[in-house]
């Protein structure tokens, strides 16, 4: 397993807090390119970025965050967790990455070679999230154990393909935050407030 997640990916310098910079497309694009370059360097994978799809994902993410934001100080940390998961959901929906090359000895038992596009988008989102959490709350995000588990990645890919909302739940799982498997794309604050139809369980 490549140890990229939550390491310093040398994201573009900015004078602004990451929570602000990440909401500007020029930084978002540069940060995404930086993450892709680092994943490529570490894994030997080669990617092509569709800038139009990336921008479309960014726009959808901004709007989703705006709609879901409870504007409640008490909910701030939990909403950061959720917003980063929504970023991953929109990236997976738009699929801005195409694999253009793999190393000859790529081991498909490792997540980065099992699902390169999903892995790369996840690493990007985890690192933007970790930087923002460190700046805003002063604590370091902890990578969940599931991040290195191939069965989790298999389930992630299957479920996200079936319903992209599960990207949010898997993101939280990887980020060491309790996922909401019942209603993964609904932000609940305070927790347990929401009631709804009988949920669909993830496939994996």
């Amino acid at each position, binding site marked *: 397993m490549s140890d990229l997640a939550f390491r310093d990916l040398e994201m573009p310098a900015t004078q602004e807090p990451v929570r602000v910079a990440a909401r500007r497309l020029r930084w978002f694009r540069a940060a995404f390119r930086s993450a892709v370059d680092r994943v490529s360097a570490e894994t030997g994978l080669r990617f092509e970025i569709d800038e139009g799809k990336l921008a479309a994902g*960014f726009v959808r993410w901004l709007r989703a965050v705006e709609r879901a934001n409870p504007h409640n100080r008490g909910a701030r940390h939990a909403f950061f967790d959720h917003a980063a998961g929504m970023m991953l959901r929109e990236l997976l929906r738009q699929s801005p990455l195409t694999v253009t090359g793999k190393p000859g000895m790529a081991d498909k038992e490792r997540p980065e070679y099992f699902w390169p596009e999903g892995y790369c988008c996840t690493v990007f989102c985890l690192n933007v999230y970790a930087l923002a959490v460190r700046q805003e709350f002063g604590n370091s995000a902890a990578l969940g154990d599931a991040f290195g588990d191939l069965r989790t990645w298999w389930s992630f890919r299957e479920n996200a393909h079936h319903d992209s909302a599960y990207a949010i739940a898997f993101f939280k799982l990887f980020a060491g935050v309790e996922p909401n498997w019942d209603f993964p794309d609904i932000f609940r604050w305070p927790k347990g407030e929401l009631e709804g139809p009988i949920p669909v369980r993830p496939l994996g």
Partner: protein
Amino acid sequence: MELAGAPCRPADGEETMTPMSRRRQGPELPGAVVLREALRSIRHVAREGRDVVAEAASHGGVPVAQVANFAISGAERMAGVAEDVVGLLIGSGAAPLDLSLSEMPTDEASAACFAAAAYTALGHVLRGLGARHALVSELRLRAAFLRVGGENASTRPARLFVALREAEVIADVRMEPAADLSADEAVRLALFTLLLWMLSDRDVGDASEALDAAQMIGLALRTELAEAGHDETAVAKLLQEFRHHV
């Protein structure tokens, strides 16, 4: 793309055909913008003509190609002369790229700055959208800016968007064969990009990256922009929604 003059501080990658050191510096000569516009038109026609001849030659035999090459050389010389005259003798007008639309007063000097910056930016954006040729009118940009005026700052950008479209500041657009946008759509997206860029937070990062980002946002809003048409309220809403996210 008809981009003859360079602003005082050009965007990276722009205006590489004529070195800055050869360009005329200092205050703009009286009537320079009119002459600049005329020479750009000549250059545009020459380049259009070159493409038409080249296309015709591709269907002919050797004699046709020889005649065509002669005609193409003439057109390229004409375009080159027009470009040099603009660059060396007339200049392109002062156009600081850090101007902010929301802070610009409505006077002749601001109109000149707006038009010169818009001219350069539109050329860059139209190229990015897949336009092969387009004629951008600095004179019409100035006139539209003055006509819209400065009242009601919140609706000014959207009124400007509609005014720029109605004034046909971008004309005669020919798209590259591989482009997936129509000429009309490219014009709409280019103008939206221009205004979003001019409204964006200009003190953050590189201006040309901001212009590219504004263009990508415009493309992502392509359907909504088409639906908005000339509806100032709808366009204003989109500009307001994304101006801090470029």
